[in-house]
């Protein structure tokens, strides 16, 4: 399993963070997702065999936000 740590730009309020969180949680293979508006960051725990990080990133970008991949553990 894998934990992703991303920066997300373009969020206007905590509501945006909740929206992204809920959208990510619906994706198969995503075990947990946490998006914080205050730090503009996202942490995602996923099973890389089922969910591809690139697919998740494009999902967020399609919703009108920018993803900055910071580090991957």
């Amino acid at each position: 399993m894998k934990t992703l740590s991303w920066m997300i730009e373009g969020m206007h309020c905590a509501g945006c963070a909740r929206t992204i969180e809920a959208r990510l949680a619906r994706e198969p293979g995503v075990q947990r997702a946490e998006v914080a508006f205050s730090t503009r960051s996202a942490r995602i725990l996923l099973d890389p065999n089922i969910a591809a990080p690139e697919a998740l990133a494009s999902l967020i970008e399609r919703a009108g936000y920018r993803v900055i991949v910071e580090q991957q553990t």
Partner: protein
Amino acid sequence: MSHAITTEELKLWSDEPATRPDRARIRARIGGLHCSLCTGTIERALGRRPGVDKVAVSLTHEQALIEYDPKVARPEELLHTLRDIGYAVSDPRKVRPFEEEEQDLVREGRRFLVATAFSLIAIALIAHPTGVAATLLPAAVIASLLAFIFLVLRSRGLGVAIGGTLLLAAIAASLVPLRDQSWFPTATPWIVAGMALILVFGIGNHILRMAYQALRRGILNQHVLLEIGAFAGIAGGVVGFIIGRSDYPTAAFFAVSVMVVTYHIFSEWLSLIVKTRSSQAVKRLLDLQPDTARVVRDNQELELPIEQVAVNDLVHIRPGERIPVDGKVMRGHSAVDQSLVTGEPIPVEKSEGDSVIGGAINGTGMLLIKVSAVGEGSFLNKVIREVEDARALKPGILHLVDRVLRVYTPTVLIVATLAAVAWLIGTWLVTGQMDAERAVFAGLSVLVMGYPCAVGISAPLSIVRGAGEAAEQGILMRTGEAFQGYRLVTTIVLDKTGTLTEGRPAVREIEAVEGMDEELLAAAAAAEASSEHPLAQAVIDAAFERGATPPQVRSFEAIPGKGVVAQTERGEILVGSPAFLAGRGIDLTSVDGRIARLEEAGRTVIAVGRARRILGIIALGDTLRADAKDAVAALRKAGLRTVLLTGDNERAARHIATEVGIDEVHAGVLPGGKANIIRQLQRNARVAMVGDGINDAPSLMQADVGIAMGAGTDIAIESADIIILSNRMAALPIAREISRRSYRKMLQNVTLAFLFNGIGIPAAATGLVYPVWAMTAMAVSVTAIFFNSLWGRPRLFIDAILSVGRPVGDAKVRTT
């Protein structure tokens, strides 16, 4: 003669199980309860009937529960007694549809518009704008009436409201030039008299009927007082016609009748707004989906309404679904969340042969159950029955206004009589001849002055303010009990699961035998992620929060109800109950003592092993809500005794009680037992109950004030007086503060309402005050109450008016 419909033809009650085998019990819905004094009247009237043991009437829910000896009394006769004293009886099983409420509101609004138009015309006709005071007063009254019209029309759009108001203002203004016509002084009294009669007997006919019914029941309520005032006005006018003197205020007397009825209709409309608004707010919270079950018949799956499911039917339950009926598991296994039904916070594993309760929520497995009970015998129906019982047994409160009126109305009547008698005797002593005209004038003036028309708006306006303030805090206060009762509560009973706690399991303690806590969590999360174990999500959450990334799982095997074996990149991991690991040959002696202690504290313990060695243990439990401790402390500081009431076991309950500082604990209470404990507590104190589950509903209804969490079950929300939409415990002391503040406002308003008329009565008794002053007192007190209630927050009032009358679907709010 048409044949009268008797209760035998239409069964208008429902039979209930009685407390003793030789007794019968019925429940009926009563219409025509106009004030809080009615409950006492019904209880007395029915209690007098032979064979009747117990009568309980609920004003808020308009229901009566009667227990009687079926050998002596018959339900038809009992309900007939109710009809005799003017109450309507209807079937308690029929629910009042939404549209009907709306229609009532529209009808009341229409009545008010006509009444206000009449009032405007009356004032325009009788006003004599000759001095500053004589100009300003009618102008102020007219302005306030125009404002009312604007408010009533506002919900139909701003344009309509402005147009309508201007139109009526124009009509009133157009009457002014008529004053110069020669026929005007003679015609005025007749015009006003006509309007008074139409208003009292035509448009206000329903009030007349209510007042008549109240009188027959021996109740002197607002309606009676209003009619006394209105009739006194008419009588005064009639006297004027008989005397036929030009200086006698004939038209003014009639005008007072018009005014009092107008104000009364306005207060009725306002009360209706308040009532409809709260009932609509609650409806929006409820999950209006009808309950259905997927029944397997002849190898076909049919989705049937719950009522059509029969005992021994096979029902399929999908993952995440609410279990619709009570039954026994035939096939499949799943963890079932019963927290809302029994108060047990940790999901329970159910497999073949186990029984499940309707209302519980299925976990991740598919279940096929055989229905064991439906309808009357089912768990949910038992709860509904208990709620109904509690509803009628709920202690009623006499509303403030009714309490005052009980003293005030007779006083007004006595003063009026005394004034008349005093004038008769006084004039006889002085002149040797009784001045009947003066005596009648004095008596009627007192009666006209006596109706404190602002009293009707004093309570609804303070509720509008209080409800508005509560809504800003995420609190829905829906009944009179919420406002007038909560402040009096001295004991507050709290449910555990879902109220004090989050109601779902979370990782509480981690004990690593080898390596770091994070490693232990990561290993456990890896195995759990592939299983559908009820505690899996809690473990994954904990790992995620600590930044532990679980290793990749190659393959896994889940043993239902026991645990998981997973092959990972870091070796074979075993996660499950300590017994499961021990059975697989892992030595647990190093953690045995610790496991026992954690289980003692009410935790659910899972053990984690890797490569045949114990890695450590993880303890899971329900977590307290973040603000539970502070809220309990605040409640105790406010002088409330706190009580914990739960269906969960004693150990877990004691643990939580000590943690948050609760005074008294009742644990292991069966669903039916909760309401009984509330009843016991009610012997010595006024009790508020806070809960969210199906099993809490009867006790929420029974308590003097029931408080439900917004995320709670429908039945709990429906049974509650206060609903905490924010699901925050901190709202409990806040709601109490709002209840106190609103009551204070109500007290001020009622004082203001009675004050001006109170001053006016002795003045009127002198027989020297003209009825115009009664109208002045009304206008001043109504205005004062509006200012006092809405000072600084007029928006709350506009919002309240605008919020009703829209279809429910529009603003459906769900808080789950």
